[in-house]
């Protein structure tokens, strides 16, 4: 496992419903990021299709592994990079049950996937109408370290990141499609999740306008002490690269030993109390 990893935050806008066009854009950004030394290139939530699909999600969703993960897996192999991107997954066992998924690919192809657990269905969001929630956190052991995947609204629920961290993830990747109006929430929560888990957190948000919704960008790589290592522009496409040094976790963890001080018995109480809300 590498001690240091160069991470590219590929903050893109998507052509809605046009997977071929979005794959071309992903290929272009991965190539550019690789030229700048990136080993892991991260794209936003549902970057294969665009975020606002509504009823079209049923025709756009694919099984995983499937066509698009194979095409992009070849790209990962060709460029010798790791790639995280978002797409709608069609369950293999059904014909119209879909998940909002983050996919991790590597030089050997498909590594794993994470199905979004918390589906926002309020304000302008209607994810529960279309997606089935996931039930598992996802952490993958790679040459670049243990990488955990979460998606957008999951970050509002600290237990998702906590569980991901407790499974060993030292880098939590959060892909997102968040409107600019929610900027403060994400800037606060990305730092909070990194600090409280003593882990690196890479947040990559969508940009562009879909059905009047302006996605805000502002992607960032946050260190275990909450410091923003690199950040992308607001509102427009950007590609920024930052470096993770896993050794930085040690002094932070020793300084504020959050993981050492965890109180598991509170989690039972949390469950009991939450059920009675």
């Amino acid at each position, binding site marked *: 496992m590498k001690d240091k990893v160069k991470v590219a935050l590929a903050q893109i806008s998507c052509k809605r419903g046009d997977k071929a066009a979005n794959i071309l854009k992903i290929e272009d950004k991965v190539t550019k990021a690789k030229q700048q030394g990136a080993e892991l290139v991260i794209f936003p939530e549902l970057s294969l299709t*665009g975020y*606002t699909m509504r009823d*079209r999600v049923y025709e756009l969703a694919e099984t995983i592994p499937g066509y698009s993960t194979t095409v992009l897996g070849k790209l990962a192999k060709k460029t010798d990079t790791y790639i995280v991107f978002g797409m709608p997954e069609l369950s293999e066992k059904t014909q119209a049950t879909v998940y909002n998924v983050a996919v991790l690919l590597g030089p050997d192809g498909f590594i794993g996937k994470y199905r979004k657990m918390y589906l926002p269905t309020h304000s302008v969001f*209607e994810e529960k109408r279309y997606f089935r929630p996931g039930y598992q956190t996802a952490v993958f052991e790679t040459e670049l370290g243990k990488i955990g995947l979460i998606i957008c609204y999951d970050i509002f629920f600290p237990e998702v990141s906590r569980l991901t961290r407790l499974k060993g993830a030292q880098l939590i990747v959060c892909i997102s499609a968040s409107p600019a109006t929610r900027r403060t929430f994400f800037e606060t929560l990305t730092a909070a999740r990194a600090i409280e888990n003593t882990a690196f957190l890479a947040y990559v948000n969508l940009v562009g*306008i879909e059905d009047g919704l302006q996605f805000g960008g502002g992607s960032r790589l946050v260190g275990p002490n909450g410091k923003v290592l690199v950040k992308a522009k607001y509102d427009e496409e950007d590609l920024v690269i930052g470096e993770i040094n896993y050794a930085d976790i040690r002094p932070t963890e020793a300084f504020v030993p959050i993981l050492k001080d965890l109180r598991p018995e509170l989690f039972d109480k949390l469950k009991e109390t939450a059920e009675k809300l």
Partner: protein
Amino acid sequence: MELTPRVLDLNWSEVETKVKRFITDYVEKSGAEGVVLGLSGGVDSCTTAALSALAIGGDKVFGLLLPEQENYNTKDVEHVKLVAEKFGFKTEMIDITPTLEAFYNSIPIFETTDKLCKGNIKARARMIYIYYYANRLDILVCGGSDKSETMMGYFTKWGDVAADISPIMDLYKTQVRKLAQHIGVPKEIITKPATPALWPGQLAEEELGIKYEILDLILYGLEHFMKTEEIAQQLGIKKELVNKMKHRWLSMEHKRRMPLTTKIQYRTMGADFRLPSTRH
């Protein structure tokens, strides 16, 4: 939540950027050559035209002045010309009086004393002119409706509200005035009393029975799920007034939606046929 005028104060540079980005993005993605707007000389339409010109360039913005004899106001025409000159967009003026006369004379049940029905003909006739220009010149209709009037249903259904995009529809009237000031719309346009000009002497605040400064705070409270009692208490006004505005807001939903139909088949327009806009 504290309900003071401060809550309506936004970062106007950011708002300007967002609105301009929205216009540019939509025009680009739709492949249109520009936008056409109906210009009354009021703050909403003048500000929307100015923002359109700032976004996509004045040469791609076409302003239509559509006055008629009964409500002709030299000041309004002057104001449109002032904004057009400042922001560099083209205008054309067409007197729609003969068209309106033709309507009045050809409708067997036409009643000249029914001001509202007559006024609505004016708004809908203007819509026909504006859409003709849009079709003919391959441009989009850019509407100037604001949030206060849209929430109140204070517009003519399929008339002045008809548009392909409505860039300032999420801004209350008092916010539009602030944005107008920010981008440099002449003061005399911002400060003049709002009127739909459907009949002589018609004034929006008089007809709505409330000042926009109060109305916007009530609507802001309702938007933020506040209870009517709380809104009334915070603004120091009667609960009945807040309830009246709330009732009007709710009862006008039919003007803001696709026409309702009854569900007969598998997927239905306006109900569970849920598609994204095809413009990427």
